[in-house]
């Protein structure tokens, strides 16, 4: 029996539909969620979100957020979420380089913190973008339209 998944950001609803499994980047490590999971509320780190529907895997780049499981319904409140197809790999690489530079030339602790955070977001986006080439995948947004 599949479960309901809803991924929302402050700007839009990224995905809503039935999925079979989900692997999310929780604060305490990777978090696998299958149908009929116990009620859970957790913080998500910037990372990859894997969504499995039927035999197809889809990847999303998340830059942190929340995950709530209640009654076979999973809600991901993301700070930002991007589908594989939405990521411009060249731009992600650029952001990565910029963040690395900022870390090496850090001035204050706050700046360092911000730089590290943007570095991690950029890394995630690059990783997810590479999925497009290496693994067969389906775009979630395209799936939702079907």
């Amino acid at each position, binding site marked *: 029996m599949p479960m309901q998944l809803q991924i*929302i950001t402050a700007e839009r609803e990224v995905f809503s539909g039935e999925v079979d499994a989900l692997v999310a980047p929780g604060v305490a490590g990777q978090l696998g969620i299958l149908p009929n999971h116990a009620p859970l509320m957790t913080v998500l780190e910037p990372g990859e979100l894997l969504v499995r529907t039927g035999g197809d895997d889809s990847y999303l780049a998340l830059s942190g957020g929340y995950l*709530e499981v209640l009654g076979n319904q999973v809600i991901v*409140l993301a700070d930002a979420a991007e589908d594989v197809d939405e990521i411009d790999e060249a731009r992600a690489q650029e952001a990565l380089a910029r963040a690395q530079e900022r870390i090496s030339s850090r001035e204050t602790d706050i700046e360092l913190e911000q730089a590290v955070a943007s570095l991690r977001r950029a890394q995630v986006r690059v990783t997810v973008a590479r999925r497009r080439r290496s693994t067969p995948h389906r775009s979630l947004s395209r799936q939702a339209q079907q």
Partner: protein
Amino acid sequence: MQMVAAAKMRRAQDAIAAARPYAQRLDRLLKQLHQSVDTQEQPLFAERAVQRVALVVVTSDRGLCGGFNSNLCRRVQAELGEYADAEVELITVGRKGRDFFNARGYTIASHHADVFSRLEFARATAIAQDLTRRFAAAETDRVLLCYSEFVSVAAQVPVVSQLLPIVPEEGAVEAADYTFEPGPEQLLETLVPRQVNFQIWRALLESNAGFFAAQMTAMDNATKNAGDLIEELTREVNKERQASITLELMDIIGGAEAVAQ
């Protein structure tokens, strides 16, 4: 211009609608957490004697929108009167608000320029982060958010709401036996700044939609007024012309009669 404003307003309304599911979920999550956490301990809930207050004033960058900006600014001025004893700090978003308070001799602590030309969530976060950090460090005791709420195309209402400290919302939600990862306190601690970000985001969205609605109405009124004016002036011109023709005719008739005699 009315048509352009109408199209842009529709887009802005869609953005408000798109933000709604997030708002509902966030709200429910917060309520859920309030039930299991004592908010007294949280830095963003701290009620202090108000000695320093910060007002975030959201107006538009552009004009031609009737009383949209001046209504809000006047509302803010009234609010400022209530904090006569406190140290007030103005933070403006949108050029019109900055101009208004600059012209009246207020100092503006910081101004966020060019937010509406490319409205995105990151802008709201940038504004909010600074406010949250300073409130948590007890550099301000209260933060108020002043914006125009988009009620309908015909009505945009100036609103002043308290952004910080956060007023815990009452209201029970169906309790579920959640596992919290990490603990509920830490969850709330990270969730609350997001709530602040979102409130700023909503204020920006509402103001943006309200601005286009006001512009649309203003342009509609302008078109109607221009129409009335044209009608009135045409009538006047016709009257004058008729008068001059009558005068000329009388001259001619008078002349003809004189010749006949």
